[in-house]
């Protein structure tokens, strides 16, 4: 029943179709972002009025916008922005939320009640509304939108982590560790965290997609990334008023957002299979 082949993890990755497709789509986005750091086909910032509203061509692969900026370049640069916001926002939620969740599961009692009631409280507000509220108070801008999205992620991670960690705390191997004289802190790091990690990773991928969506939504409302930095959400917003004049402009940012979200969701789904602890696992 055992499969001690060291490549078995890779094998499972290869066998999961959603992992492969999701991985390729996400990888493509990362590649775009990386390339755009030092090269883009045209310029995402230079305004060239004579070139505005160009359809896709060899020079401007996806055409130009109302200011004559190259759309491919704007999308590629926008990828950077989306990924940066999502990474930072998810990391904030991940680090604080997971810590709180682990703490709640380890301490139980009043600590747990307190942490969970606060997270319930924050769940009572619709995520996007609270993000709008935060950016409205702190003022629009990239950093503030990161903060707004990150704050929303904290209770999501905290709940998930606490729930899974409680299940692990009830297992006999944790009792065995306590019988061995290990304290709650050590047990949390040696037994609980490794056993809930796969669930957290899957959740992080999905929240990553949600964060990209949220960033796009905030930028669309003018509360996120500010001009002249290109952003998918704002491109969509600007294209909206020109939808009959130049439909191309609306299609591509929309496609980019869809690709990112779909790819990450597939990846999360695939990771669920790949990291399934019931299947053989090698570190």
């Amino acid at each position, binding site marked *: *029943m*055992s499969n*001690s082949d060291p490549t078995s993890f890779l094998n499972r990755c290869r066998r999961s179709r959603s992992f492969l497709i999701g991985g390729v789509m996400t990888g493509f986005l990362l590649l775009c972002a990386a390339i755009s750091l030092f090269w883009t086909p045209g310029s995402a910032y230079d305004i060239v009025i004579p070139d505005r509203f160009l359809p896709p061509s060899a020079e401007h692969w996806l055409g130009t916008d109302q200011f004559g900026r190259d759309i491919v370049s704007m999308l590629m640069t926008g990828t950077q922005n989306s990924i940066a916001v999502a990474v930072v926002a998810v990391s904030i939620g991940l680090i604080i939320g997971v810590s709180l969740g682990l703490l709640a599961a380890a301490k139980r009692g009043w600590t747990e009640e307190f942490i969970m009631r606060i997270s319930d409280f924050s769940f009572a507000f619709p995520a996007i509304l609270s993000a709008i509220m935060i950016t409205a108070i702190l003022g629009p801008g990239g950093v503030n939108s990161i903060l707004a999205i990150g704050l929303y992620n904290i209770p999501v991670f905290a709940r998930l982590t606490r729930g899974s960690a409680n299940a692990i705390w009830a*297992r*006999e*191997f944790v*009792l*065995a*560790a*306590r*019988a*061995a*004289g*290990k*304290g709650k802190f*050590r047990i949390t790091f*040696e*037994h609980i965290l*490794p*056993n809930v990690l796969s669930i957290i990773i899957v959740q992080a991928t999905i929240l990553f997609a949600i964060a990209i969506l949220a960033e796009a939504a905030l930028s669309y409302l003018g509360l996120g990334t500010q001009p002249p930095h290109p952003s998918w959400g704002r491109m969509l917003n600007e294209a909206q008023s020109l939808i009959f004049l130049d439909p191309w402009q609306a299609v591509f940012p929309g496609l980019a957002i869809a690709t990112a979200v779909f790819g990450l969701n597939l990846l999360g789904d695939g990771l669920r299979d790949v990291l399934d*602890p019931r299947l*053989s*696992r*090698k*570190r």
Partner: protein
Amino acid sequence: MTDYSVEEPVLIVEDLVRHYRLPKESLFAEHRYVYALNGVSFEIKKGKSFGVVGESGCGKSTLARNVMALEDTDGGSVRILGEEVVGLSFEQLRPLRQHFQMVFQDPYGSLDPHLNVDRIVAEPLAALGPLTSAERDERVREVLESVGLKSGDISKYPHEFSGGQRQRIAIARALITHPELIVADEPVSALDVSVQAQVLNLLKDLQESFGVTYMFISHDLAVVEYLCDEVAVMYLGEIVEKGRTEDLFANPAHPYTRILLDAVPQPGAAKKRDRIKLAGNVTGQTEIRAGCAFQDRCPMVKNVCRSEKPPLVAVEEEHLAACHFSADVRAKNKPAAG
């Protein structure tokens, strides 16, 4: 094997009480309790095996967890090697833990799937304080050898082993600190018969070579008879009968013990045996009542059983029973039981 030296017992449990508080049924309802242990007392001599038998819900696993100081106890005393462990903080307990270790029932749930055998087995060494890595590796190698695992198994993960081998890993983990006492909670009940025999024999052999003391919890009377010198029968959080295994099994003095023994199916026995059966239904553990704990299910219950609680008294040397009519029970025992 009988040893009459007047050594201090490895474990002395006195009047141990544990009541779990149930969650309130409604905001204004009174708290209700599960009376899991209602004053349990016994002691185990060095190098002996003490069996605790009873059916689910009789409190035997609670007893194990309280002896192991894994829960807060509500009353009574647990002394291991003369040292009181009830009331000690987790930190105070840590240096003592090397003297008492535990083996769990579920060979799948008691090993962390993310750790390899080396890390699993070495885990209790945490209680010993710092060891050099050479000392640590030597201990792991030595203990794996004593439970019959290969040195090549050290880097494998639990899923690569069968149930019996996993239980060997769990036993190795319990042995690594050279404990005086091992509390084993149903260590063989999840195993196949042929594998169960291997593990039981291993436990016997380890006792012979290391002189370790066992508190062995099981629902299987035949297993307890095979492994234990002394046995206690539990019913609803109390010990109802206690004695040397051979006395108690051959000549039980409590009707519950008699019924348990009769209910064990015997291979090769006649198709239907003549036997005493349980009456009535299981009583809950959520109330404490006057009289004998076994009154609702006892086939020979009398009025006095409903009003007066029978004390645990000697019926012969080193054989105690808590029944008003233990003499009657013993009179009905067939000359050769089983």
